[in-house]
């Protein structure tokens, strides 16, 4: 077992700010600090878990990340009977996750997806609220048909899941409101 944030208040605030920036300016890459992640998680994914997940937000954990379960359970206390958040090492089937309702769209899941890189790999064109003009994001580690999967999710708006992409100590986000095309 290893500690969580080195400075629990300041590091969590700074990570929260990074997620907020990433959600409001989709695709812009942010960095986090202050945590050494348990294998197989990257530091950014661990920081997001520490920041957003607690004992009142059920977490679905990718079986491939099982080794990190004791650390996550200890630091977040998150129950496992639902999925306010999903921590995944490969994109899960979005149809199995809660997408909220028209009345309560906030009850949908937020997926924290660990990928290989946010600077290299296939390019995606992002467009939507928060972007003055379309932005380009490179990601290594998304499925080949990601753009079409995402557009189905995007079409559910105001319902739909939100995605936080993490690689190393960096992260970015794709809120449900953003549309994604292959470049």
């Amino acid at each position: 077992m290893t500690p969580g944030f080195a400075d629990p208040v300041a590091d969590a605030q700074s990570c929260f700010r990074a997620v907020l920036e990433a959600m409001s300016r989709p695709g812009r890459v942010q960095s986090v600090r202050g945590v050494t992640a348990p294998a197989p998680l990257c530091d950014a994914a661990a920081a997001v878990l520490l920041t957003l997940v607690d004992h009142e937000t059920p977490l679905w954990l990718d079986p491939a990340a099982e080794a990190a379960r004791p650390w996550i359970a200890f630091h977040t206390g998150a129950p496992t009977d639902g999925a306010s958040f999903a921590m995944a090492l490969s994109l899960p089937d979005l149809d199995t996750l809660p997408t909220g309702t028209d009345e309560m769209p906030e009850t949908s899941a937020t997926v924290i997806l660990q990928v290989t890189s946010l600077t290299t790999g296939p390019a995606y064109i992002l467009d939507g609220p928060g972007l003055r003009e379309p932005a380009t994001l490179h990601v290594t580690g998304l499925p080949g048909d990601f753009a079409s999967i995402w557009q189905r999710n995007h079409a559910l708006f105001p319902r739909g899941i939100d995605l936080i992409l993490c690689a190393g100590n960096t992260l970015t986000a794709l809120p449900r409101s953003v549309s994604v095309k292959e470049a």
Partner: protein
Amino acid sequence: MDNPRSARQRWMSVLARAETDRLRALLEDQAPLPEYTVLRGPEAGLVMVRGRAGGGGAAFNLGEMTVTRCTVRTETGLIGHAYVQGRDEKRAELAALTDALMLDPGRTDALERQVITPLECQQEQRKEERAAKAAATRVQFLAMQTMRT
């Protein structure tokens, strides 16, 4: 104690009620203490206290209480936890450290005799004092009996 879990539950409950200065003084007598890393906390937070409708019925949320928790790992790899009422961070940290030390078979007996038992005695004594004051206010209804005879 019949099993390790209930033994640990007992000492954790004693530690949760220990006074900070007393616990610190008792631990100092156990020197040298191992180095330790704080894995979490000490941090103050809340727990929601629940009651039951009618005393035994469905649960309801009565209100919150302050609690401070801490988890430490000693250099020998033992992990100790503490959840203690109130907001005293030092108390939570010392309780977590003592919990970890109690898991070390080489120390359990000495700690039990020199830390846990003295704390427990003090706590029992306080309970007994209050029970004795309450007992003094017991209504005897002597007049009623006299009238009947």
